[in-house]
């Protein structure tokens, strides 16, 4: 068989595994969300379906599948059906460039963990895909032909555009320091000094905070969940959706949350890199062995889960922003701060020839 066939098989297997991981992760997140919110509110949370309620997400999905799938008569039939697909496809598409661990060597092949982790515009790809996510939500808001949905969609568009600016600008600091848009190279930069702990969060603390806040806004999570704002907008862009179409929005939201957590872990907390790489090398677990790769995956996954829990924790702590407060924070605080951060970073790099 030719090399192309092997490559196709490899990528097919990787894609199947990763899509399944995304879907399972979403249900794990739903479970965590319900449990943690319950604990914060002095409740017990789901504990009936399966041991400790672990099968609750499955029951939820079954419920969503059984529900009647309504499309309002006045809605734009095509776009109303397209919007959830678009949102979910984009949310899953981002996972193509995320590196889960470095690589393993099988025979003479070097198999990287991730579908295309070495793509040289990884950072740009993720930014581009998350901004396409806005289209899905805005389209859902407009195509539903309902005022609540439209308001939610408009808010979502305005909010995402405002926060994407400061998000992108705070990212440029990372890219300047690491000198690459390739996600694996950004991780390798963080691994290669300070005992594998040259995490960019130590070099870019302000940029990290700006990025964190913006990613909350980008994923429509509280305190920036104005597009869905149940008390004022009934549910925002997903008001007119039911059954599995609503489920797809739900899934996309949780997939986006995992993406944001993964992105934070990759860019600011060293991604899959293990602390003290020499120590692991001396144990014989060199790069390319399965054990090393699994350890790296464990390192990445731990960071990912910590940030997912943090996202959930914040949601049940902080109340929602008012619309003008949201815009003030985005344009008058975060944007100037991220520009200052960018200039200071660039100046330090130039003057100290780092």
């Amino acid at each position, binding site marked *: 068989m030719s090399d192309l066939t092997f490559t196709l098989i490899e990528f097919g297997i990787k894609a199947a595994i990763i899509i399944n991981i995304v879907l399972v992760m979403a249900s794990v997140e739903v479970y965590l969300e319900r449990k943690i919110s319950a604990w914060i509110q002095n409740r017990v949370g789901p504990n009936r379906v399966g041991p400790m309620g672990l099968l609750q997400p499955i029951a939820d999905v079954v419920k969503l599948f059984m529900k009647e799938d309504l499309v309002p008569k006045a809605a734009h039939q095509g776009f109303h059906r397209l919007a959830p697909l678009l949102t979910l496809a984009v949310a899953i598409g981002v996972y193509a460039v995320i590196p889960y661990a470095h690589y393993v060597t099988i025979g003479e092949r070097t198999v990287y963990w991730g579908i295309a982790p070495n793509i040289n515009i990884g950072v740009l790809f993720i930014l581009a895909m998350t901004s396409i996510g806005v289209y899905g939500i805005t389209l859902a808001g407009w195509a539903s032909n309902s005022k609540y949905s439209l308001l939610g969609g408009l808010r979502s568009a305005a909010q995402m555009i405002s926060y994407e600016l400061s998000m992108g600008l705070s990212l440029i600091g990372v890219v300047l320091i690491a000198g690459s848009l390739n996600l694996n190279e950004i991780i390798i930069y963080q691994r290669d000094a300070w005992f594998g702990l040259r995490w960019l969060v130590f070099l870019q603390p302000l940029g990290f905070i700006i990025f964190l806040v913006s990613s909350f806004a980008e994923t429509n999570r509280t305190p920036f969940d104005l597009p869905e704002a149940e008390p004022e907008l009934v549910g925002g862009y997903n008001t007119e959706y039911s059954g599995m179409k609503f489920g797809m929005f739900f899934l996309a939201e949780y997939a986006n949350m995992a993406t944001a957590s993964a992105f934070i872990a990759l860019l600011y907390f060293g991604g899959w890199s293990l602390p003290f790489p020499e120590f692991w090398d001396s144990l014989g677990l060199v790069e390319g062995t399965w054990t090393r790769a699994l350890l790296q995956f464990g390192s990445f996954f731990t960071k990912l889960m910590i940030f997912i829990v943090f996202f959930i924790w914040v949601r049940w*702590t*902080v109340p929602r922003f008012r619309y003008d407060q949201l815009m003030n924070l985005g344009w008058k605080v975060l944007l100037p701060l991220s520009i200052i951060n960018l200039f200071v970073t660039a100046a330090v790099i130039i003057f100290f020839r780092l």
Partner: protein
Amino acid sequence: MNNRKNTEAERLTFWEKMYIPEIARGLGITLRQMFKPKDFVRQYPEQRWEPTGSFRGRPVLVEEDGGERCVACGLCARVCPALAIEVQAGETPKDKERYPEKFEINMLRCIFCSYCEEVCPEEAIVMSKDYEIVYTSPQEAILGKEELLVPKAKLQDRLEFLRQYK
């Protein structure tokens, strides 16, 4: 012109305006809350709540010596503000006594006011502790004598409560 003085925004200190420390404080509060024992929750179908005698649950007829205490005077039906009770009297072989041939309470109408219990001269209708009142059809919600009769022993708490406070 005084209305613009001392607004909420002006009262905030510098660090409060910076958001981050205050958010961190809030996160600390919720974190502490997360690890508190959850003793307020009752695992319902396993752990049931046992009401006290003062609880007004489903109204029932007191069963004594194999029959009802009720003498079918119809006062309860007369006083019921929701018109939930229907009584039809019948003659017994004993002198000057009657019994209810038909005694129906429509639980869809009952408002648990306990007026029937208050007005009853024989202490024959009392409020029980039954709070799990569920029906699958409106016909099922009309309770006849078979469903309403409850042995006196089971209603002891309520009867004692009535002696003390009525």
